[in-house]
């Protein structure tokens, strides 16, 4: 009897330990070592550093790792997420506070496996789900560059995450579900340019961080379906749909122009994309931007069939008509000088509104915010003194903004759902900075 009990306990214990080991191997899989350092590593150190500096621009490392007005790469910018704020760390060459003491292998492990030097799992606000695609050579070049960034002795701030998101085990489970380390592999049957573009867009560019929808656990979906950017509240349009920002019908030169200068016929970047152009894309070579254009064009899918608009009740139809009429009057007062009576705009300063896809997306937050906050196109080397749009938020009330946005979504053959004053009001309280 006693023997049976002991045996039972032993079996249970073995099963328990076994399941722990199994769970551990699922939740804490061994690092993927990736490819061995290539021959480029031996190349001239100055070239490697310059290449790393360029790649740091392509990855826009500065945007997260430098707070407003702070020292370059010294960290401390709060990355707000639905789970709390992640505080970006110091990645200057400071040996104590930064990554000055990190070896190439340590740096590679962060980029490729999403782990810190001490082995802790990193939060994917650091987009290692993208950076895992970076080649070892590029990672080593980045490492060489960051070792030259002037040291700043600034202590890292603790993240401000809510329970349970602040637990490593939660992160381990998230990674088991959504993260597989793998370097980008060129796809046969595609051109060199396509593969280069895919590497940049999926890897360093981490475009999917905004241009894909995210699930409840913050993981990006496959594909480029677009989505509301959490907390920032801007809508990052789909990169596949011709009704949004799909680029299949754009020629390469126009795509390169938009990415390099922030303005192109029929489009001006705004919101977070202005920051991306300013801090990252304008610094890339024409060859790399051209490669990105080739890849982005290939993402386009056929336009979704337009849904017939639901018939309005007579009351709603009258209200809508009145709103459009009010919007037309406001347009004539405030918008017409720059955007013109025919909605044709004045290139390159004022984008055409007639046929402008950015106005007509079902999700209307971007045009509402453009009217409320105005703003400048990003200053770039080809557009160093951009024209600006006034902020109409202090001038127009919610009904008026809704009217003028609804109007431009319906004038000149444009067609998109109307906008309500409530939708406008919601945007007034979204933080701008």
């Amino acid at each position, binding site marked *: 009897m006693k023997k049976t009990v002991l045996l039972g306990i032993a079996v249970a214990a073995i099963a328990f330990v076994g399941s722990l080991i199994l769970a551990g191997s699922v939740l804490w899989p061994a690092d993927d070592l990736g490819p061995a350092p290539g021959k480029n590593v031996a190349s001239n150190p100055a070239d490697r550093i310059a290449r790393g*500096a360029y790649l740091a621009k392509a990855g826009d490392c500065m945007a997260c790792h430098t707070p407003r007005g702070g020292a370059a790469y010294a960290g401390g910018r709060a990355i707000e997420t639905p789970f709390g704020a992640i505080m970006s760390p110091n990645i200057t060459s400071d040996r104590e506070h930064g990554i000055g003491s990190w070896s190439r292998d340590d740096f590679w492990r962060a980029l490729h496996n999403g782990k810190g030097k001490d082995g802790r799992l990193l939060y994917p606000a650091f987009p290692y789900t993208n950076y895992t695609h970076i080649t070892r050579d590029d990672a080593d070049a980045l490492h060489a560059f960051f070792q*030259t960034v002037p040291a700043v002795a600034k202590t890292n701030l603790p993240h401000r995450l809510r329970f349970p998101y602040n637990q490593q085990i939660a992160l381990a489970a998230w990674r088991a579900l959504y993260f597989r380390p793998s370097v980008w592999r060129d796809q046969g049957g595609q051109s060199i340019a396509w593969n280069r573009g895919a590497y940049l867009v999926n890897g360093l560019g981490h475009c999917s961080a905004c241009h894909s929808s995210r699930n409840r656990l913050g993981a990006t979906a496959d594909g480029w379906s677009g989505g509301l950017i959490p907390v920032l509240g801007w809508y990052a349009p789909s990169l596949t749909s011709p009704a949004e920002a799909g680029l299949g019908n754009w020629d390469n030169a126009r795509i390169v122009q938009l990415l390099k200068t922030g303005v192109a016929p029929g489009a001006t970047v705004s919101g977070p994309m202005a920051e991306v152009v300013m801090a990252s894309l304008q610094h890339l070579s024409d060859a790399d931007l051209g490669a990105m254009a080739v890849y982005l064009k290939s993402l386009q899918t056929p336009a979704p069939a337009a849904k017939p608009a639901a018939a309005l009740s007579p009351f709603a139809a009258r209200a809508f008509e009145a709103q459009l009429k009010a919007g037309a009057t406001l347009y004539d007062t405030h918008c017409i000088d720059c955007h013109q009576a025919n909605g044709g705009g004045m290139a390159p*300063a*004022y984008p055409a509104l007639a046929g402008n896809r950015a106005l007509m997306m079902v999700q209307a937050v971007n045009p509402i915010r453009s009217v409320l906050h*105005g703003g*400048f*196109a990003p200053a770039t080397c080809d557009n*160093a003194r951009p024209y*600006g749009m006034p902020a109409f938020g202090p001038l127009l009330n919610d009904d008026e903004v809704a009217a003028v946005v609804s109007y431009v979504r319906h004038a000149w053959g444009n067609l998109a759902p109307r906008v309500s004053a409530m939708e406008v009001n919601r945007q007034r309280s979204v933080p701008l900075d």
Partner: protein
Amino acid sequence: MRLMSLFPFFISCALALLSLLAAPAFAAPGALPDTLAQRLLACTSCHAAKEHREAFFPHIAGKPAGYLYNQLVNFREGRRQYPLMTYMVDHLPDAYLREIAQYFSQLPPATVPAQATTMSTTALARGRTLATLGDPAIDVPACIACHGQKLTGVAPAIPGLLGLPRDYINAQFGAWRNHVRRANAPDCMGLIANRLSNQDVAAVSSWLATQPMPLDARPAAASAAPLPIRCGGMTDGGN
């Protein structure tokens, strides 16, 4: 290092500009004015005197260029906090901000009417004392000691104080005291704001807002006497 790494970028910028110069102008003549007035409509829609809604937006025309430039940079770098202003200048480089500051400094100053006040005469008298004589007991110099005898500012970097809405002045003192408006060290106005009581701030802001602007409201060319306090904002370009 940062400058060095940007060097190739400047060269490519210069080359791109040269190629633009060589290209024939494509815009139809007269279609789009290539003027700062046109480029900066985003600024004037709030800051033009005739558009003084809410009486909160300060006038900027004719203010010293160094002062305006410092403020634009301070908004961009988070040393001043007004989200809409930060949003406006976020993606604009120093060179353009300098040009913007220069442009507005050269416009004739707005003539903004003085505000009425409900403050007591005692409070207004205290405000005038602070503005014209200061208060050595609390180590506060007179406003006129730095901002000019006529309070219309001093080139290149000290702003005039007349024609500003009282609420705007109050808000700035609040921001200095809470360290959300900062200048490069030594932050003279931050120090002064923390030496004044709430009553003193209300007194001086009310008195200033009730003063009519002189006909010539341009800033003085230079200070008549050495400044009584050191100011980081005076070292233009030290941002």
